[in-house]
């Protein structure tokens, strides 16, 4: 379990590998299966997710600790986080388009998709649920983002090979992709218990 007692490295490692957000926690699977048939798109999506996730969960952390708790409004958590993230993504898109056109061409099309990417909202929730302090919650989210990118890139590579392999008729497409994900998840499960995580 992740808590404030763990060191920064263990929090990062646990978020990225041991509790991998896609393969172990089953969050953000829609994009995992939807986008992973293209290696380049997967890498772009991964980068966009890391960036948005770290920024928006830091903002959500501040909103929660400096606004919701002092005014005793914690029941507004779900609504306020999703609005924070949606606003932030909109704002980022406008900012990047104006000031960093190269980055915009690389990330642009993935940014709107991220609003409905549950990984971003989930990492904000989980950092609050684990009662992490600010630094640790930032490290935690970076770990989650790298875990997402790692899993989706590896999966996209495997799927490119599978598309050329002879697969039983009814398993073509999504069924075989799920079974592949099952074996990846099995491999990641092997890390469970390492360093007592």
């Amino acid at each position: 379990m992740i808590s404030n007692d763990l060191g920064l490295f263990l929090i990062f490692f646990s978020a990225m590998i041991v509790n991998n957000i896609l393969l172990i926690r089953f969050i953000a699977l829609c994009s995992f299966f939807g986008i992973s048939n293209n290696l380049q798109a997967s890498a772009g999506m991964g980068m966009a997710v890391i960036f948005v996730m770290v920024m928006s969960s830091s903002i959500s952390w501040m909103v929660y600790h400096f606004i919701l708790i002092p005014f005793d409004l914690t029941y507004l958590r779900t609504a306020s986080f999703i609005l924070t993230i949606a606003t932030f993504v909109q704002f980022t898109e406008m900012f990047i388009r104006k000031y960093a056109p190269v980055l915009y061409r690389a990330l642009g099309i993935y940014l709107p998709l991220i609003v409905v990417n549950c990984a971003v909202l989930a990492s904000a929730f989980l950092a609050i649920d684990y009662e992490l302090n600010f630094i640790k919650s930032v490290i935690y989210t970076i770990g989650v983002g790298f875990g997402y990118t790692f899993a989706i890139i590896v999966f996209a590579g495997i799927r490119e090979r599978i598309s050329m392999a002879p697969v039983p008729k009814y398993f073509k497409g999504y069924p075989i992709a799920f079974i592949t994900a099952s074996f990846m998840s099995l491999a990641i499960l092997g890390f469970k218990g390492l360093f007592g995580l």
Partner: protein
Amino acid sequence: MSSLGKEFTKGIFKENPILIIMLGLCPTLAVSTSASDAFGMGAAFTFVLLMSNIVIALIRKAVPEQIRIPVYITVISAFVTIVDYTMKAYLPALSRSLGVFVPLIVVNCIVMGRAEAFASKNTIAASLMDALGMSIGFTLIITILGAIREIFGNGSVFKQAIFPSTYQPFLIMILPPGAFLVIGFMMAIQKWLSDKGGKR
């Protein structure tokens, strides 16, 4: 009346949200470790989808086109908060095992998708039937998945033991890889069934 019936049944078979449209996979796989958890998730989901579809169908003419997405998200998140707090108060054990997936219903693609694709364009009655059908389709699949995993992984279903105590549980089924494996096979079976039905 027949068209209302069609809105209802399409969610269960022809446009099943999980197996055909492939939406809402995260809670499906994560909370289906036992049949009762899966059923609880289905119930929470049904409430949110039903209420938000009704409300969105009611206000669809008053909402300006440009800001419809934030408005829908706010409506959905209000109902998600109601479910979350009700569950915490009356069913604390279920709430603990579902964990972060209850607040995550707010970004569940099925809810948003139905709001955007159906409730914003149709009457209240049609939206109600659509929501009912979709939720039953979702609850059905998630409960079957939970039951299969619980039977093999724990030797029981709805916490009632079905195998004698000498049964060695197939532990991998209730661990994360089992979820991917079972849903993969369920999709293959669904493809096979619809192919057979098409030929006839």
